[in-house]
């Protein structure tokens, strides 16, 4: 038997047990679909962690969030846009937290969409911090639901990619890039 293992992250695997391997890195992996994405942000990890850990900041760069309310230090309530004008809601509980390094969460029973995830902050020296988001979820409506979400660009893989880019822009420049010609247009375009 040839050893086929390599050093690439589990979320980039082409074959078979990819999802399992990636989900295994989550504390409480939920769901069959896994998204992993990294971005390098030219800011120290403690600054990024502090901004992210205050979940009320997340709508500043996450496009699909309608609202996040923080009930207690570990539990928050999320309302998120879904395809065709619908919304989905869940309570998320923080399952692991290491200051300046990582936050992991999982949805509570009764969620419209079962999901869990983690965000890690790794020091990258002069280049700043590598931020990696890993999200597992059960697409509502299975594969069809995932395709519909993709059509409406509400698919988590697309969203995670764009949200991380906006996080980088906001942290590095103090603003999120937009071609809007006036505040009204900006409002209509969303982030």
């Amino acid at each position: 038997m040839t050893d086929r293992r390599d050093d690439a992250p589990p979320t980039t695997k082409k074959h078979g047990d990819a999802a399992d391997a990636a989900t295994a890195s989550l504390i409480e992996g939920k769901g069959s679909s896994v998204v992993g994405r990294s971005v390098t942000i030219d800011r120290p990890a403690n600054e990024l962690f502090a901004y992210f850990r205050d979940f009320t900041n997340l709508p500043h760069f996450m496009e699909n969030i309608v609202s996040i309310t923080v009930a207690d230090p570990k539990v928050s309530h999320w309302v998120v846009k879904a395809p065709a004008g619908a919304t989905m809601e869940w309570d998320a509980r923080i399952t692991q937290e290491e200051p300046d390094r990582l936050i992991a969460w999982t949805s509570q029973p009764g969620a419209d969409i079962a999901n869990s995830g983690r965000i890690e902050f790794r020091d990258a020296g002069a280049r700043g911090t590598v931020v990696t988001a890993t999200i597992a979820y059960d697409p509502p409506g299975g594969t069809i639901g995932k395709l519909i979400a993709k059509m409406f660009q509400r698919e988590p893989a697309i969203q995670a990619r764009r949200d991380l880019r906006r996080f980088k822009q906001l942290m590095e420049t103090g603003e999120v890039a937009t071609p809007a010609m006036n505040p009204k247009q900006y409002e209509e375009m969303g982030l």
Partner: protein
Amino acid sequence: MKALAWHGKHDVRIDTVDDPEIVNPRDCIIKVTSTAICGSDLHLYDGYIPTMQAGDILGHEFMGEVVEVGPKSTLKKGQRVVVPFTIACGSCYHCNKHQYSACPNGLPADNQDIAQELYGHEMSGLFGYSHMTGGYAGGQAEYVRVPFSDVGPIVIPDGVDDDKVLFLSDILPTGWQAAEYAQIEPGDTVAVWGCGPVGLFAVQSAFLMGAERVIAIDHFPHRLELAKRFGAETINFEESATYEALMEMTGGIGPDAVIDAVGLEAHGMFVDNIIDQIKASTFLGTDRPHSIRQAIIACRKGGRVSMPAVYGGFVDKFPLGAFMEKGLTLKTGQTHVQHYMPALLNAIMEDKIDTEFLISHRMPLTDAPKGYDLFKNHQNETTKIVLKPGMAG
């Protein structure tokens, strides 16, 4: 306000649209006093660039007066500024390396998908140049919203005419960077394909960097005449065989450095070019790269290839074998405008670089559709059109 909007292939119109306002804290709004039509605008006009939408305001070479500033802008109302066509934040990893056109912070996140798919990475945002580069409204308008106004625009001293400094926005730094990328050494012979604005600025720049000879290649007699004015020798490719002429003019060695300032819409009836045109019209290949092929074949062994010319997609019949066997070096890329602006402004003020020679037409903004037609169909005498929104029609 009035603005020049793209509505389809060979269809640009003056539309009336809402005035821009401050959106982000580092924005400013400028009232445009001069804006030029760029050769690369013709790629949009001819429908070669994907992700255009009807109503998109064109223009990426512009300057004007600051009329509004966001709370984080460092500009003051009333200042005159030239705006770089690349939208860069000024402080990220790439900007710190002065690779401004690689800045990811000026390109809206949603628009980054296209470039990432096509090129592997996102590039900087650009004004008025399709949605792949951000969908920003351009400068062929009465007013423009300028992001990152605290780091991009350069302030022009009073008393210096618009026409002297307007080209700091794109073509002058682009021609300069092209010559810099050719890594010219004293005594070198440099060949420049294309005597459009970028090619002509590359000719001037190459001499300033110590080239002994510059050979300019085009088929428009007037443009070759302009190159000659700066001391270049010329080859009219309709009169002479370019490769053979270059070899004879360099004693069989070939030019030490070659600059392709033509790009994806090469003119001329060469066999490979005709095949490219058929392929482009059937979307089999998007770019028509005759000039870069010829430049690589003509370049001396161990020489340098500089490619300021715009290419957007894929090409075939690229002479990779010649490139490898001869051990050439290629440097290319969108221009890092912000890096060059201060030094080039000084060079203009000290009369080391002539910019005004290029302007063949000045017209009101409202005549812009006529300007596009002129620039497209009468390239020999139309070297550069400058639109003046304040000029009476």
